[in-house]
């Protein structure tokens, strides 16, 4: 099992990668990185806990706006805004878990939580004093302890460190009694309770933790694009995020990483045909559901047992 440790070499191998890329490619790479935490939170709830909650874009947008507004209007340094972005994302997650606690499931839960994201988008449009309304707002150039993050190259290294940390924490969480409890609730909620798992508390925990991680992804998005508009948090964005976890593999951490890269990079092929990128997500989702219902990560798992997702240590 210690073979798994070689995975931690991956970020080291990635260190020199942006040096071979042009500035636009570096930006795409950063986008792929920031979609890893966004996918982690989404996958935790949909893939591991098994609840079809579509409120992910709400946490994403909240994280982005909390970070952006705090920086632009209150001069808070970016790295400090990560904390409120995570806290508010987490609180939004806890709120979004209420229908699930009331026993709302499947399609009904999907629709109710989808409305949450749309409600937040409406809020960004209406709360012009803070968000600049539909015209959007500029996000100041971030500063990390005196180091200006004014290029995509610099942001890459900060993002990489952050993503490695979040992936490590998520891996640890999933391979503990918490990760097992989420899977148990997905597989058989009644039996999970019979094992002594307070299922309600775990549902809130998964939503809140997921929301917090997505909120951090939102704060990364804010400084990566440098300009926030409500349009970035619409249903197309939700589709993109859903494509990440579907294509990568539901309930798979490896899958989230693969999905984030594929869904970000694949549309670049069609960059000169506007509108085609949405077609690409749609096509990717259809192809994966048809031929690889457990996502691309399942191909890896089939290739070598080291890629099989485990929910225990030792």
């Amino acid at each position, binding site marked *: 099992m210690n073979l798994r440790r070689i995975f931690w070499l991956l970020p080291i191998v990635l260190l020199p990668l942006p040096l071979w890329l042009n500035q636009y490619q570096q930006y795409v790479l950063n986008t792929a990185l920031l979609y890893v935490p966004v996918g982690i939170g989404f996958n935790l709830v949909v893939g591991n806990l098994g609840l079809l909650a579509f409120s992910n874009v709400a946490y994403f947008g909240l994280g982005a706006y909390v970070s952006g507004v705090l920086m632009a209007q209150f001069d808070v340094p970016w790295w400090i805004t990560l904390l409120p972005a995570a806290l508010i994302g987490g609180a939004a997650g806890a709120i979004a878990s209420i229908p699930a606690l009331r026993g709302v499931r499947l399609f009904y839960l999907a629709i109710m939580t989808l409305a949450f994201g749309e409600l937040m988008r409406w809020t960004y449009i209406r709360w012009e004093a803070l968000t600049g309304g539909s015209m959007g707002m500029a996000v100041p150039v971030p500063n990390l302890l005196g180091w200006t993050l004014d290029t995509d190259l610099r942001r890459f290294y900060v993002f990489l460190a952050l993503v490695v940390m979040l992936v490590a924490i998520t891996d*640890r969480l999933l391979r*503990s*009694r918490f990760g*097992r409890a989420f899977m148990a609730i997905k597989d*058989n909620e009644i039996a999970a*309770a*019979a094992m002594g*798992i307070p299922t309600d508390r775990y549902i809130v925990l998964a939503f809140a933790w997921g929301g917090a991680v997505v909120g951090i992804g939102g704060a990364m998005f804010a400084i990566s694009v440098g300009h926030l508009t409500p349009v970035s948090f619409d249903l197309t964005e939700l589709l993109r995020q859903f494509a990440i976890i579907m294509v990568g593999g539901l309930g798979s951490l490896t899958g989230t990483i693969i999905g984030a890269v594929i869904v970000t990079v694949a549309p670049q092929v069609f960059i000169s045909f506007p509108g085609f990128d949405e077609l690409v997500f749609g096509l990717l989702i259809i192809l994966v559901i048809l031929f690889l219902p457990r996502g691309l990560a399942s191909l890896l798992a089939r290739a070598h047992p080291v890629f099989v997702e485990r929910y*225990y*240590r030792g």
Partner: protein
Amino acid sequence: MADPPLLSVRNIEVRFGGLVAVAGVSFELRAGEICALIGPNGAGKTTLFNAVSGNVVPDAGSIRFRGEEIAGLTPHEISALGGRRTFQNGGLFPELTALENVLVGLHVQVGSGFLGLLFGSSSARAEVAATERARELLWLMGIGHLAEQKAGELSGGQQRMVEIVRALATNPLLLLLDEPAVGLSPTARQQLAVVIRNLARTRNVGILLIEHAIELVMSVADRVIVLNEGRKVADAPPEEVRADRAVLEAYLGHA
């Protein structure tokens, strides 16, 4: 002078709308005792189980577990007190491996805290220790080689064994087994009987057993409670119930 019985059920009543599923049943179970619950389909056996395990809140009556009232507690609270159950139609987590299933059973015992887990190492050690324990138990019950297989891919008999290992991993005081012999081969049934008897005799677990496999009931039970239409119609040692031809004819469909 005497300790309170492990489980004491008094005048339990469970209604579903107009239907009275359990109508005033009382019985007691001592530690180390094996008690079988039999009766035709719809007699209220599983409903009675659900009331004891907290899956159904009884409309009237009291359920005391080691002298403490548990009627109305949630399933996870009763489970944490030491009352465990298995399910009729497979209570396993099919996407998890056999080992992970047993580990979920140990959920309360592992006790790793959320923040400690993210940043500390003692919680991580508790996790590793629990994994070792679960592996050991699987080997002990002769299914150690299945540890890494997904529970949903195991045969019916193997699933049954995993479910029992999972239930007893926590050293429960009370075990509710809902038709554990369904889908088992005759040899596996004999193994199951040995396991059940050992649990009661050597570990002093009180066992309540719903079972249609009458030979298993007769071979393991100290006492047999017969239910019909939500009422208790007999509560006696197996040989007496067996001799009671009326009970057999009416509730087991053969004389």
